[in-house]
């Protein structure tokens, strides 16, 4: 069964460094999302991406964040200058059209 994959599973970085989180959505899906979950808290929406552009973003998704679909398979989230409060699990999700969103296993980001 097709699934969303994410790499790396765990990323440790120093405050102020740039990180890129990578996702491979399910191949025939058209909508792509990033969510994050701080330990012990709710899953929060960050950004949605459709037709090669951002369709919606939350207030969390400020100028330090960017997304890209550099080729036909990958979907990336970049954080330019990480802060301690960016430490969280980051989930990529995708959906075909009106179907449900399928989530990846997540990347645990630890900012020291």
């Amino acid at each position, binding site marked *: 069964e097709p699934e969303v994959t994410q790499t790396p599973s765990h990323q440790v970085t120093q405050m102020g460094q740039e990180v890129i989180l990578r996702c491979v959505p399910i191949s025939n899906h058209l*909508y792509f999302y990033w969510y994050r979950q701080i330990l012990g808290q*709710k899953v929060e929406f960050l950004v949605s991406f459709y037709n090669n552009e951002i*369709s919606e973003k939350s207030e969390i998704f400020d100028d330090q964040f960017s997304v890209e679909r550099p080729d036909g398979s990958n979907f990336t989230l970049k954080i330019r200058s990480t802060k301690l409060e960016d430490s969280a699990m980051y*989930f990529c999700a995708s959906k075909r*059209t009106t179907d449900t*969103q399928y989530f990846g*296993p997540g990347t*645990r980001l630890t900012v020291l």
Partner: protein
Amino acid sequence: SQKIEQNSEALNIQEGKTATLTCNYTNYSPAYLQWYRQDPGRGPVFLLLIRENEKEKRKERLKVTFDTTLKQSLFHITASQPADSATYLCAATLEYGNKLVFGAGTILRVKS
């Protein structure tokens, strides 16, 4: 503001019984609700989706209801097993393609 609320207390039940989890929403008219299972350190796994014009959906031992008058969804697991122990997340969306807004989740513990 739009809110999705789930029982914050853990639900402890005996194996073989039916678990019933509640999701309430306020200031919101979701087009559909989705239920996910999340195990510690893992991504949400899709279980069931129910649309606003549907009263009930079933899948194997799972059943979900959607009451737009009460602004509530109930999620049932019949003949529960210890392997059903996990956090169950309710998520809502206003329109197809839009972000999911998650509740905090309810921890279910099934004891043998």
